[in-house]
């Protein structure tokens, strides 16, 4: 396995520092793989939709206009209108904020909890390792989406609980990854040196080991973002978490599902496409990052 930042992924001249260096590195990453460049472009678009949201949308995503209900895509409504005459394009754009927020918060949460737990398990070993391992094994004993359903059903039908459930089902993945990487380094030379000079264990863990496993974690986070979006959309598709009329891709597909048999395909198609593109984008970025961070795992 690679040793993270010890292997310089970008040989050749590198600019000195600051913004220039970041940009040059980004250009290097993108030039190596045009597909990754495309994915970053899509990500930019998604983030733009999420940040500006309603300001970008041509109509109010919640405003209904029954006179214009169930209109197929046209110049006035490029994605058509739904059963209440709401503009689907506006709703798809506005939904980006909620979908991305769910994914970002759940990934941040699982990184903080699962990553740190795994780090401690690998570094300290002993009973810490056993407790973390047992918890991870128990979560893994469930089919993950089914466990997420159970958690949201038990804790209550809210968006916060969707974030929580998505984080919980990903804990084993992060804990195992962090554990393996920390266990390799627990007696590395630099750790022994740090310990000898009187650094506390927590300090070594956070300033010595954590930065070393961050590159692999970043890859994992990107891949999990896609999975988190899928998971949250799946939960809201079966009626958990997000409630109408809130625009969210999963629930919009669910609302449009009933209209497919009568021919109004656009209600479900466009939010579904948005969902697919978002997940595709995060998976491509994850694959691209992995090729850079860890070329041996390239498949």
């Amino acid at each position, binding site marked *: 396995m690679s040793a993270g930042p010890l292997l310089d992924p970008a040989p050749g001249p590198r600019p000195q520092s600051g913004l220039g260096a970041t940009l040059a590195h980004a250009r290097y990453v993108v030039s190596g793989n045009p597909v990754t460049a495309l994915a970053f472009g899509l990500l930019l678009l998604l983030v733009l939709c999420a940040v500006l949201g309603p300001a970008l949308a041509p109509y109010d995503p919640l405003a209904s206009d029954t006179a214009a209900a169930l209109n197929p895509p046209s110049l006035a409504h490029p994605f058509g209108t739904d059963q209440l005459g709401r503009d689907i394009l506006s709703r798809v754009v506005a939904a980006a904020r909620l979908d991305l927020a769910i994914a970002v918060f759940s990934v941040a949460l699982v990184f903080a909890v699962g990553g740190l737990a795994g780090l401690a398990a690998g570094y300290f070993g002993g009973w810490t390792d056993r407790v973390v391992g047992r918890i991870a094994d128990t979560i893994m004993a469930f089919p993950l989406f089914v466990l997420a359903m159970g958690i949201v059903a*038990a*804790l*209550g039908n809210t968006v916060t609980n969707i974030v929580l459930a998505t984080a919980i089902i990903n804990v084993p993945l992060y804990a195992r990854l962090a554990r393996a990487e920390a266990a390799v380094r627990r007696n590395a030379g630099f750790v022994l040196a740090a310990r000898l000079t009187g650094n506390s264990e927590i300090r070594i863990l956070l300033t010595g080991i954590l930065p070393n496993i961050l590159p692999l974690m970043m890859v994992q986070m990107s891949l999990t973002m896609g999975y988190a979006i899928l998971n949250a959309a799946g939960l809201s*598709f079966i*009626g958990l978490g997000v409630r109408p009329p809130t625009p969210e891709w999963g629930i919009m597909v669910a609302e449009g599902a009933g209209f497919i*048999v009568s021919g109004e395909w656009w209600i*479900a198609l466009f939010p579904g496409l948005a969902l697919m593109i978002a*997940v595709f984008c995060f998976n491509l970025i994850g694959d691209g990052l992995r090729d850079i961070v860890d070329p041996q795992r390239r498949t």
Partner: protein
Amino acid sequence: MLRLVADRLITTVPALVGVIVVCFLLTRVLPGDTAAYFAGPTATPQAIEQIRRELGLDRPLPEQFARYVADLARGDLGQSLTTGQPVAADLRARLPASAELTLFGLVLSLIVAIPLGITAAVRQGSMVDHACRIVATTGVSLPVFFTGLLLVTVFYFLLGWAPAPLGRLDTFASPPPELTGFYLVDSLAAGDLETFRAALAQIALPGITLAIFALAPIARITRAAMLAVLASDFIRTARAAGLSGRTVVITYAFRNAMLPVVTTLGMVFSFLLGANVLVEKVFAWPGVGSYAVEALIASDFAPVQGFVLAMAILYIALNLLIDLTYGVIDPRTASAA
């Protein structure tokens, strides 16, 4: 072999205990009053109090847990408010529908994914290899409910090839005499080709939806495992000894590449059991997944909890089965255990 089975059975005990504890905790963390939830929205305070006593919710937690485990041992998962039946009976009645759909989807994806993965590995860099990569990346990005709806739009609404996505059989057709609960098997056993064709037409789209979903991880891991094996010394020796390419790839390489593929099946089952819920909702498939979703919408929690527990136990059993097939594929793992 019996020793081996017994050893493997023992290793599932911690997982089983963990699952039961988590399911117990999930029944107790319902926000607000658990008894009020189980009593339903229209219950009087007296009824809630009675249910609290019936469920033993007024007792200390360890005692409640003992009671929960005792109920489980008798196969009692509580009552469903919506169907009025015991949850265990409801689940048993609907499980064959879900199992048939899941297995159909899995077999379909294996038939496509394994040859695809092998070809991609043997002809690295060819069109098949690129196709394999595109399939693998697209497959994991497609929301399974969206794939299902797309297939319905194209094959039912636009082309009219598939029947309406409403369950296992047309409402006017009668199910075949029950043998296994799998309509495809039962209708063949009864020699009823017409019912078989009708059941196949109904299961085709949901099955393909699940297959597309499971395709990506299987194709990906088959390709990676084959690449690793094909690069090893014994393959070089076999080739040098003049064995035909077919013998080398199928008999020598694939058997060795099967272990990682079988390991991935564990993960694939985890995905499939979850995806099943969504596919069943899209196709109005009368299985355990749509049962749980209906109960969820009606705030009827006993079926949901029963469903989560049943799926977890099923998943543990499937993983046990996968563990045991290791020994069949690779005798070395059996003797080492």
